């Protein structure tokens, strides 16, 4: 290994690339581009399915920080003090408080004729909200797919999550009950804490966020009356920050203030449903496995390309050796060619990734049942995969070049 060999290898590689058939070069670079995209996109979409779900959960449910009652408490004690304190923090943009109680909806109760018939009913979490504040924090109104969002003056009107309606979640299972006879504008009976109230479905929420689609929303004042909560203590407080980067700092401020004694103070990340975290890990692993297979495929592709190239040029490799060009220079020539194909394919792949695929999938998310899938391609992840591809390419280019360049010089020249 010396400078002369590298210099001559580079000289040969540049000319071999420049004077190779343009269609051959184009085809090899195209294959490398697809290989790179396979490496990044498949894993990126798998992670993106969950990432979109996490993002929705954060945007429309937990916001940046979520305070909820401790396990042994039915509500957050001193809620008004916490809300007031949070609203006074300069980092905070908006705060919403929620009363949450289990409840049951019943539909078609007026048509029930026989005693033994099962009532059309569904259970969910009844959530009392200040409609304006909730919308400011979680943009809940944007998730109303049918009907209208709540007004603060609504007395007997509710929003209902799509999972509680058969029309939006057509699952017919004894364990998963939803309302078959209800829809927008239906009068239904709401039972909370033994209190019953007839309400009208004003709007339907479909968000692909489990926490929302399984809930029944009504104005906080009305729910408070139904459950007899006179102390204004709530069950959840969601806090939206002006700059989400300060999430840990604000969490610490609230903890230092002693609020952790009365509430679980979780960041959006900590508030993710456990199943999402598990799926995210599993999908990341799956993405890595698929990516590794892609890397092996890429290596084999380069190996075949270089091997075929070297074999068909075996005679000329023999001639070069015959006139005194050492094997290492010839190997360098092939490694540089491999690198050229890999770098060109990767660069084109990166351009396609960030200027075509990511914007396109962001604008047209992939419709999955539990999320609107996006393509996650972090710069660090992409660079890491590009680096892995280049290393694999160097190895895959070097091996066939070595095999061919080490053959007997005279045999190569004479084609024996």
């Amino acid at each position: 290994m010396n400078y002369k060999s590298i210099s001559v290898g580079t000289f040969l590689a540049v000319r071999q690339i420049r004077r190779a058939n343009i269609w051959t070069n184009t085809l090899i670079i195209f294959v490398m581009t697809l290989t790179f995209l396979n490496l990044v996109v498949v894993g990126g979409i798998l992670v993106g399915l969950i990432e979109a779900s996490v993002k929705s959960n954060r945007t429309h449910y937990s916001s940046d920080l979520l305070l909820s009652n401790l396990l042994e408490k039915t509500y957050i004690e001193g809620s008004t003090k916490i809300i007031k304190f949070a609203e006074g923090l300069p980092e905070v943009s908006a705060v919403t408080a929620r009363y949450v109680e289990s409840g049951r909806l019943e539909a078609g109760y007026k048509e029930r004729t026989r005693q033994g018939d099962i009532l059309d009913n569904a259970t969910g979490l009844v959530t009392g909200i200040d409609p304006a504040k909730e919308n400011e924090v979680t943009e809940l109104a944007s998730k109303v797919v049918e009907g209208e969002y709540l007004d603060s003056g609504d007395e007997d009107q509710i929003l209902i999550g799509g999972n509680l309606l058969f029309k939006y979640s057509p699952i017919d299972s004894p364990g998963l009950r939803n309302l078959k006879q209800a829809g927008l504008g239906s009068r239904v009976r709401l039972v909370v804490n033994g209190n019953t109230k007839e309400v009208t479905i004003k709007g339907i929420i479909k968000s692909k966020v489990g926490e929302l689609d399984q809930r029944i929303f009504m104005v906080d004042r009305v729910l408070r009356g139904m459950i007899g909560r006179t102390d204004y203590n709530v069950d959840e407080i969601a806090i939206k920050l002006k700059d989400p980067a300060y999430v840990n700092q604000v969490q610490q401020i609230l903890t230092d203030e002693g609020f952790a004694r009365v509430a679980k103070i979780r960041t959006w990340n900590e508030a993710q449903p456990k199943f999402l975290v598990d799926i995210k890990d599993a999908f990341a692993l799956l993405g890595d496995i698929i990516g590794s297979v892609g890397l092996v495929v890429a290596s084999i592709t380069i190996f075949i390309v270089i091997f075929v190239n070297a074999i068909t040029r075996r005679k000329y490799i023999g001639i070069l050796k015959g006139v005194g060009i050492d094997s290492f220079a010839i190997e360098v020539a092939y490694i540089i060619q491999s690198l050229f194909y890999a770098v060109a394919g990767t660069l084109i792949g990166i351009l396609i990734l960030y200027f075509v695929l990511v914007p396109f999938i962001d604008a047209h998310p992939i419709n999955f049942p539990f999320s609107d899938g996006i393509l996650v391609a972090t710069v660090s992840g992409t660079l890491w995969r590009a680096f892995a591809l280049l290393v694999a390419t160097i190895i895959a280019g070097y091996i066939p070049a070595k095999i061919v360049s080490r053959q007997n010089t005279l045999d190569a020249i004479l084609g024996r």
Partner: protein
Amino acid sequence: MHIISAKKIVKTFHNGVTDQTVLRGVSLDVALGEFVIIIGRSGAGKSTLLYQLGLLDHPTSGSLRIGEVDTENLSSNARTEFRLTELGYIFQDYALVPELTASENIIVPLLMSGFSKKESLILAKDALKKVGIEDKWNNLPSQLSGGEQQRVSVARAIAGKPKIIFADEPTANLDSESSALVVNLFRTLHEEGQTIVMVTHEEEYTQYADRVVTLRDGEIVDIKSK
């Protein structure tokens, strides 16, 4: 003074079942500045002998000295280095690299020898001028006639000023006009003091050699000196 001293060179090929001995104890000395032509019928072992003398192949037995170097114990890399710096080759089918222009085919071994790019360009230009095709500087082999390709091959062989030039049937694929041009080149080089060992089956060129060695069935059967 002998620049090549080959003693009892034997070359046997093994095809897995049988052995075929192509050279049977050939001994040959070549003096510095001598023009030696090896002739013989097809299959006589001419090219095989040239490959042994030119370090492109290993003899099965025998010894070979080139200049002061006993080549028997040279490693593969050392043989490659030796070919680069001390020997020049001209092959029957020109053996030019198709992706390289005429000048680049000449420059590559020069760069490998350690010449700078600028020096290599000057040497390549001189060599092409010497063989009379400096105007073909930027032509790819596919853009040259057979005679022109062989002249590029000669230019590549002489550019690095090697001690010995080996030519394996350099006129075999050429028309008579091109053949005459190439042989005249060898005559000129020889007149300038270049040592040349050439294999041919065309007897009309033997008149230019200092010595003509005739091979038959792997053995030297005749040596004629001028």
